């Protein structure tokens, strides 16, 4: 069990004190008992005296009676008278003294009537002497009654004295035993307390010293640790001051940055508004372009119709050409027939044959021309087809262009939407940047406060450092003290 030093010391004192108390109590009780016993012894002696006095009184009364009987002189009765007046008082005193002893009281109760009777008898003898003379009185005395009475009295008193003597012996024995007990208790207790105090002193000294030494060691190391910690804390505090300085700088920079970003947000908002305007213009342009595309489509469709009309006219030309071709064929046939007729005519039809050949040539030329025209018409047809296809493609392209333009319009609309949102966001950024500036100011203020606190901390830390140094020195001194006081330096 680990006891505290105070408890150990307390125990070291408490045990001897308890022993001393016990010794004191025992001595007191022994003294009281001795006093009581001596008082009782005195009491017994007093009782014995009183009993002796009663016996004396009885003897006095008897001697007075005898004197009177013998002489008949009244003045011999004086001892009797005195005894008579004294006996009651004496008996009463004895009774008072014997109140604490019932056995003696019983004996006293037995004694009292004996005494009374004896005195009555004495009276009777005296009266008999006075009235009847010496002889009668002698006769009464000779009857031996008086003697028997006094013997009884003596016997009772002797019993009582015996009792009291026994009591006296008993009480003196008791007093002796008490004295013995008390003195032995005092001697033994004193010795015991001396031993206990010595042992306790030894153990307390040892325990306390080792504990104190241990504590001092702990204290030394703790003090040095505190010192180290304090030094470290001082270093930390100065680092903290530096860090705070840096933080302040950083906060300033951040503030600058926030201002810049606020400026940028403002610029963004302005730009976004400009962009929104541009987007509006773009949308209008897209609408116009869509309209233009639709118009172009309509124009191209009209163009296609015109081209088809031209193609139909070309077909009409083709029909005419067919007619011309037939005419050529007929002319050719006519020329052949003419040539045949000319041949039949022989020499006479020679000139006619030349004309027929001319006609045939013309007919063939016209046929060739129609073939050419047909070819050209075919080309025109192809060109028309190509033109119609191109127009169709143009219409499709216009359609696609319209769609693209509408897509662009949609894109521009969404762009405008985005720009609008961007404007809102930029405004929010602006607001939050302003709030940030305020917040940064607050942070700067807080950092200033921290700086002040840090400075105070530094001062406090220096004080603590000094205190720690003092503590360290003190603990070392204490260690030296303990080491000197202790048995041997166990540890540093």
């Amino acid at each position: 069990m680990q006891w505290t030093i105070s408890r150990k010391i307390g125990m070291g004192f408490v045990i001897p004190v308890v022993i001393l108390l016990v010794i004191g109590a025992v001595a007191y009780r022994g003294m009281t008992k001795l006093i009581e016993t001596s008082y009782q012894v005195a009491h017994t002696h007093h009782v014995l005296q009183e009993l002796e006095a009663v016996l004396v009184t009885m003897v006095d009364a008897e001697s007075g009676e005898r004197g009177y009987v013998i002489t008949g002189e009244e003045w011999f009765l004086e001892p009797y008278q005195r005894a008579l007046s004294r006996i009651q008082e004496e008996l009463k005193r004895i009774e008072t003294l014997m109140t604490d002893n019932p056995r003696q009281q019983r004996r006293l109760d037995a004694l009292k009537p004996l005494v009374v009777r004896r005195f009555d008898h004495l009276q009777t003898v005296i009266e008999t002497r006075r009235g009847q003379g010496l002889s009668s009185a002698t006769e009464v005395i000779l009857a031996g009654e008086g003697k028997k009475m006094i013997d009884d009295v003596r016997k009772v008193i002797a019993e009582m004295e015996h009792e009291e003597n026994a009591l006296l012996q008993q009480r003196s024995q008791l007093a002796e035993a008490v004295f013995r007990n008390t003195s032995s208790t005092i001697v033994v207790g004193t010795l015991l307390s001396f031993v206990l105090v010595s042992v306790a002193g030894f153990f307390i000294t040892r325990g306390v010293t080792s504990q104190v030494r241990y504590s001092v060691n702990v204290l030394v190391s703790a003090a040095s640790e505190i010192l180290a910690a304090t030094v470290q804390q001082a270093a930390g505090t100065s680092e903290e001051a530096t860090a705070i300085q840096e933080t302040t700088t950083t906060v300033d920079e951040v503030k600058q940055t926030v201002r810049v970003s606020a400026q940028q947000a403002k610029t963004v908002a302005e730009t976004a508004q400009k962009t929104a305007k541009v987007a509006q213009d773009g949308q209008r342009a897209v609408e116009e372009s869509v309209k233009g595309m639709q118009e172009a489509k309509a124009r191209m469709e009209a163009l296609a119709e015109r081209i088809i009309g031209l193609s139909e006219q070309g077909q009409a030309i083709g029909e005419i050409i067919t007619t011309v071709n037939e005419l050529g064929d007929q002319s050719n046939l006519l020329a052949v027939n003419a040539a045949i007729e000319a041949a039949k005519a022989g020499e006479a039809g020679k000139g006619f044959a030349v004309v027929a050949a001319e006609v045939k040539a013309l007919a063939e030329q016209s046929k060739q021309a129609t073939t050419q025209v047909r070819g050209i018409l075919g080309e025109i047809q192809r060109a028309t087809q190509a033109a119609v296809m191109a127009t169709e493609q143009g219409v499709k392209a216009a359609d696609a262009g319209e769609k693209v333009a509408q897509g662009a319009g949609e894109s521009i609309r969404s762009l405008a939407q985005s720009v609008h949102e961007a404007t809102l966001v930029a405004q929010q950024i602006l607001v939050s940047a302003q709030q940030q500036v305020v917040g940064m100011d607050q942070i700067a203020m807080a950092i200033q406060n921290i700086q002040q606190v840090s400075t105070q901390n530094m001062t406090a830390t220096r004080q603590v450092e000094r205190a720690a140094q003092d503590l360290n020195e003190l603990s070392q001194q204490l260690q030296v003290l303990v080491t000197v006081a202790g048995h041997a330096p166990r540890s540093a």
Partner: protein
Amino acid sequence: MVEASTALDWQEVYARLEQTRQRLEASSALPPAEVRRLLRERAQALARPLVEPPTVTDVLDLAVFTLAEARYGIEAAYVLEVTPLRELTPVPCTPPHILGVVNHRGRLLPILDLRKLFALAARNVTAESRIVAVEVGGMTFGILADAMLGTLRVGVHEVMPLPWPLLHDHQAFLQGITGEMVAVLDLEALAQDPRIMVDEDVD
């Protein structure tokens, strides 16, 4: 999108259109000098170098036509007229080489298909198809030709006998072949062929 035709010069387009219009108008009404010039050009083109005309008795005037990629000639003396093939009426109960009949200047003219007769590849009648109406020994009929080429005057001596026997037996109807590779039909032989005569009983 279609690539924008690189800057179409509309003024040039209009100018070209105007030129075309003017040319069209000009062609419809040629000035007399131009007409004369054109005619002269054509005459010069047509003018052939004069060849020594052979003696009248020795010459043979042929009406030349094509039939199955070959050229045939008929003596002009037999030819009545060359006409287009119109309103052909098939005649039942006739041999296959008789195509049908046509109305030729109020007369019923049977049409003979030499393709069938000569066992040549058949061919449909086209716009070029012609009827050569002939009269041989009081018999009048039409010969279907694929196309009419014109007349040709050759010397009699120029008509050679066929240099190689033809695959089919129609060389009996040919007098010979000229230097221009024109097979000259022997109409007399043709007219006397019993197949020309239509004499079939109809049940």
